[in-house]
């Protein structure tokens, strides 16, 4: 995907919805409509900072049929490479940004007979859009929303108004927890479960569902993984004959792009496989942070997903 495929937008509104989460409304710069999308989609937001460019994925929370603007929710991340900080601190109403076309790696299953949605914290965002797709339809659904305290429950009023009893909230501060076992062991055939939020929550849902006998194809998750930080390292791009230096808070993909070389990408989060790159030389080790390569492929060290993975050691040579 190249830069020319982005859509120019302007920040039309910013709202602090919880102490850590800001709600941004993005409108197209040239007026007109943005592309329609399916609930669960995310956009890559391109933010040009003073010293570097950030490209972070954010779920669209706006109703999919609202075409005059997109809405995203951004949590300020403690350990961050800066993208969320940039949005929270440097972006104002009127700031211009670029976004890529929506991509959906977390869609609702269209032939499910029931949908169980489980959100933790900022993980509520994709479900807001999906609820619009589900609302008024024939397929039953319910949302279980876990937050650390009522003050951190973003968009709760909007949810309650629209969905009433179909939304159940659980506050850590009140000692409430989602009853995973009971929830997942009593669902009718054809139910799909969708989870979005911290790694621990996702793990718990997957493990409980599997222990209850759910097959993998009925368990869906989206993760907001900030590409991990690490030590600086170098990569030699054999085809381009360029040496690229990857900074500690920069991904290998970003470093390659900064050097002016295009690598196909999609999710920028280690799941879709689009940036798959061949490793033709390695003296050291690869640090695979993706969810795409098989265990065998990871240990063979002939492939790397530069959007999230890194290397350590004396040298790395890539087929780029």
């Amino acid at each position: 995907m190249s830069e020319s495929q982005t859509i120019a937008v302007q920040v039309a509104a910013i709202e602090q919805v919880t102490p850590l989460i800001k709600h941004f409304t993005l409108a197209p710069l040239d007026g007109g409509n943005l592309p329609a999308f399916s609930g669960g989609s995310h956009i890559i937001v391109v933010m040009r900072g003073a010293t570097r460019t950030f490209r972070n994925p954010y779920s669209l929370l706006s109703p999919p049929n609202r075409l005059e603007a997109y809405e995203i929710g951004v949590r300020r991340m403690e350990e961050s490479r800066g993208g969320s900080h940039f949005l929270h601190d440097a972006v104002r109403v009127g700031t211009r940004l670029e976004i890529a076309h929506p991509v959906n790696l977390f869609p609702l299953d269209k032939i499910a007979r029931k949908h169980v949605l489980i959100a933790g914290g900022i993980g509520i965002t994709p479900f807001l859009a999906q609820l619009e797709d589900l609302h008024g339809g024939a397929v039953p659904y319910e949302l279980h929303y876990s937050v650390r305290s009522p003050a951190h429950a973003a968009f709760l009023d909007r949810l309650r108004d629209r969905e009433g009893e179909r939304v159940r909230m659980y506050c850590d501060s009140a000692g409430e927890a989602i009853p995973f076992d009971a929830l997942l062991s009593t669902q009718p055939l054809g139910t799909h479960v969708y989870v979005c939020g911290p790694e621990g929550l996702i793990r718990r849902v997957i493990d409980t569902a599997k222990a209850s006998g759910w097959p993998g194809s009925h368990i869906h998750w989206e993760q907001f993984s900030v590409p991990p930080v690490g030590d600086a390292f170098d990569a030699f791009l054999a085809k381009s004959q360029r040496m690229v230096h990857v900074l500690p808070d920069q991904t290998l993909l970003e470093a390659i792009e900064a050097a002016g070389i295009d690598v196909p990408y999609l999710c920028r989060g280690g799941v879709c496989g689009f940036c798959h790159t061949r490793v033709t030389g390695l003296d050291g080790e690869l640090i695979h942070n993706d969810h795409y390569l098989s265990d065998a492929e990871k240990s063979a060290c002939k492939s790397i997903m530069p959007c999230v993975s890194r290397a350590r050691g004396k040298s790395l040579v890539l087929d780029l």
Partner: protein
Amino acid sequence: MLITGIKSKPVYTPLSADIGGRYHLMLGMGVGAAPLLRVVAQMRTEAPSALANTRVLYVPPSGDAAQAHVAEFQNTGVAEVRTFGNAQALLAAFSALLTQALMGTRLYVAGPESFMGLGMKIALQFNLNKDEIRAEESGSLARRVHCVHCRAETEDVRTNVVQCVGCSRWLLVRDHYSRRLAAYMGVMADAEAPGELPPIQEVFA
């Protein structure tokens, strides 16, 4: 339009227990009892607690063998064994069971292919997908053939060429299979040279 080389023919593998499932539902017909009994035996060794959540629906063969098979099932320790006089009755009961079934259910089907196809067609309506269904062909390989010209279904086809019960055309029986119709495709065999049929052979015994 050759029979060979088509990759959309279903492939069956010998049944084994899916211990990852919580409830196990078995559909069997005739000699399909054997693979199902094998699965139950495997459960008894590897996960005996699964037997209490296992139910069997079975159409016994006619004759003396019937009682032997039914007794074998009843001795296995599964939660329930129900027998039926024919496939239609079994499938109606199966459909009713699925309306109450929970996530975690696994389906095992063994019997003639056309019986299995009908069972899986019902399973599809409940969004049971390939992770949750295991099927082993046992007994007759005879096919249900869907005539692409008149859409009639010709049952129990054992030959490579068959006369359609609907439009009387001679149909080449292809390996291209539809799960939605639970049938193989039949296409007119002699359209280009009327009367010129390939040698008719029994292929699906």
